[in-house]
């Protein structure tokens, strides 16, 4: 079995639409987390990383009829999906699969119409509620794919989609896979995170001693991954390697992380083992770094367990985008690959002092560094922890 390469990327998040806009915002160091505009919530005090386009704007961008029954999560997904497939120059859907991660699914409309559903109104959105419904709407943009799958492991959904797509290729079930995730903001999960008291009313401060919670965001991102040989055969231009990945379970608590960060440790070490490289080879970690007390402390502990005294450069880019939950894994995979290809580490914004117990300081100013191997971490509720490693083709 040959190597797995990335041949296309697509992204939409609060920083903008497309890899160029997102990378330039990261370089400028300007976050895009602020007052809610599109989501109808009374919690206007909570900063969010909202995509600036309205549903109608996205529908018109995608040439969808204005009466389409489509919710925001698949709309965001379609925008990113088209970019990824376009960059990869993928035209033949034979033996190509789509693995999509989402948790919110069609909740954005269900929460608006739920009570009316029972009166027989807006019932066309009942069938658009579940996670798989949106996957199909996105995947159908491509014609007849060989298979579609939906994954929902909360904030690691998109990373697990990357892992499953890669395993489908390695086991001979597919020759190419479009993988990643999409998630719109919803009143449901904004209030859910708020009820858990893990939302910061100010811009989030990942890995800072004074961190006070996360800011939610929304977005979508997909990668096209392929077996190297078959990608080259069809004339595609590989961007980088998906060198290693692993999924593990913290098996500790439904929403909290174990103090020793066991799941995170197993995910990172598993990815290193699969990539066949030593911890010292990692040049940059795009950390999960949500800004909650629990995550950042445990992730720091796990990073120290894996990397010992020589922790590589790391940053969380969630202060730029907000936490895009089920899309975070692929949004940050795209950011990691942009970092790798441009030899640029984006800043961990809003950091002033390290967490006392672990003493780790992230990269606080964006900088140019020669990068070869980049790790991206995504950890979900329930301890669904996954890591990926992207490497330059050398």
């Amino acid at each position, binding site marked *: 079995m040959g190597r797995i390469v990335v041949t296309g990327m697509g992204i939409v998040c609060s920083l903008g639409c497309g890899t160029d806009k997102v990378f330039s915002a990261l370089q400028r160091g300007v976050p895009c987390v602020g007052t809610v505009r599109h989501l109808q919530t*009374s*919690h206007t005090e909570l900063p969010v990383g909202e995509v600036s386009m309205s549903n109608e704007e996205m529908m018109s961008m995608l040439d969808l009829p204005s009466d389409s029954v489509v919710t925001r999560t698949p709309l965001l997904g379609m925008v990113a999906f088209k970019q990824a497939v376009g960059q990869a120059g993928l035209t033949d859907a034979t033996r190509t*699969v789509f693995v999509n991660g*989402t*948790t919110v*699914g069609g909740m954005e409309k*269900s*929460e608006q119409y*739920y*009570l009316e*559903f*029972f009166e*027989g109104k807006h*019932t066309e959105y*009942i069938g658009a509620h*579940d*996670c*798989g419904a949106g*996957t199909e709407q996105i*995947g159908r943009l491509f014609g*007849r*794919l*060989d*298979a*579609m*799958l*939906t*994954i*929902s*492991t*909360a904030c690691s959904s998109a990373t*697990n989609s990357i892992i*499953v797509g890669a*395993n*489908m290729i*390695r*086991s*001979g*079930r597919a020759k190419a896979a479009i993988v990643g995730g999409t998630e719109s903001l919803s*009143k*449901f*999960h904004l*209030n*859910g*995170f*708020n*009820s*858990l*008291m893990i939302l910061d009313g100010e811009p989030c401060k990942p890995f800072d001693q004074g961190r006070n919670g996360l800011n939610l965001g929304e977005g979508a991102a997909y990668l096209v991954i392929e077996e190297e040989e078959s990608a080259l055969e069809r004339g595609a231009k590989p961007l980088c390697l998906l060198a290693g990945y692993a*999924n*593990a*379970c913290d*098996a500790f608590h*439904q929403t909290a992380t174990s103090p020793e960060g066991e799941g995170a440790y*197993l995910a990172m070490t598993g990815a290193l083992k699969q990539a066949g490289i030593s911890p010292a080879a990692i040049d940059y970690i795009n950390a999960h770094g949500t800004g909650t007390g629990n995550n950042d402390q445990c992730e720091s502990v796990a990073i120290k367990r894996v990397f010992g005294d020589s922790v590589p450069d790391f940053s969380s880019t969630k202060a730029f985008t907000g936490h895009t939950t089920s899309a975070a894994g692929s949004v940050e995979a795209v950011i990691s690959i942009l970092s790798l290809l441009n030899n640029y580490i984006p800043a961990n914004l809003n950091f002033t002092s390290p967490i006392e117990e672990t003493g780790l300081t992230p990269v606080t100013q964006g900088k140019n560094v020669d990068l070869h191997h980049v790790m991206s971490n995504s950890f*979900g*509720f*329930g*301890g*669904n922890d996954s890591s990926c490693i992207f490497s330059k083709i050398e």
Partner: protein
Amino acid sequence: MAVYIQSAAQISIQSPLCDDWFTDPILREERYFRSEEPDFKQYVDPMSARRMGRLLKRALASAKKALEGETATLDAIVTGTGLGCIETTEKFLLAMLKEGEQALPPSHFMQSTHNTIGSLIAQHLKCHGYNNTYTHRGTSFDCALQDVLMQFDLGALSSALVCANDEMTELYFQLFDQIGYWKKEDVKSEMFHNASSEGSFAGEVSATFLLERDRTEKSLCRLDGQVLMYQPDELRVREAIDELLRKGGIGWSDVDGVVCGYNAARSNDEVYARLMEALFPDVTQIYYKHLFGESFSASAMGYYVAALCLKRGEVPSHLVFKKGRTTTPKHILVYNHFQNKDHSVALLSC
């Protein structure tokens, strides 16, 4: 790479955590019927159970039942669920819509994420291995099974739990009713044989399978392989079955039965009837949704049915949809489709 189904456990609208349905099926006529609950105390301590929604208790009980007597370490837990813990999701949603966006109960939100099921099982079994959750409508379980099978192929696993969990709350039953999922009248068994209208009848399923690399005395059957497809034409289905038969080292004439998801809804059943007529006109067709109802997790019971028929060497008459040539079942295909979009076919052998 051969994989064996070592055990299976289910909680559904049949008697829970046993295989009584194989010999003494209960035929429900109500359009809506909730699962019969087992005595959860044997599987979940009452203190923790108090904080769990119904589906979580069922998921844990069926997982522990499937593992009964097993001490081997578990490498993976993979779950399929169309809607996750919809009961707690509804509670949080209704509280938010009726009482506003303040002082909402976090426990209902915590249990609303689909992966709360698989991660709770991992917590209780202290399993740090691979953990994933699929939410792909009527093929959620089939996707979960594929994940495990491909990792067996890659040599990444030697044991795994594969689970299916969906509950049908009264509210969700009503919502699905609005969009034509259910028949408007009581369900008679003859409806399954001559589906003239749309709509099925509702079920609930929590099912868990233990898969391992080696055959043991208790193994129910071997799983030779499985293929997922999207909107396949007949040629694609033939290719998929060819591939499975090659893996199983058999030919088309060695297939003793095909398990199909007939559910009494015309457009659903037509797909199976057409495929069977074209591909397996003389082969026994086996059905199961007349016993377990329709739900996003229902297809898991198709595998359970095939596994038990292979283990016991017979297809009981109440599971025969259409009688073909009479053979002792050695190789059974399990075919599932959702709205003729997502399809799955698997080969199970004794």
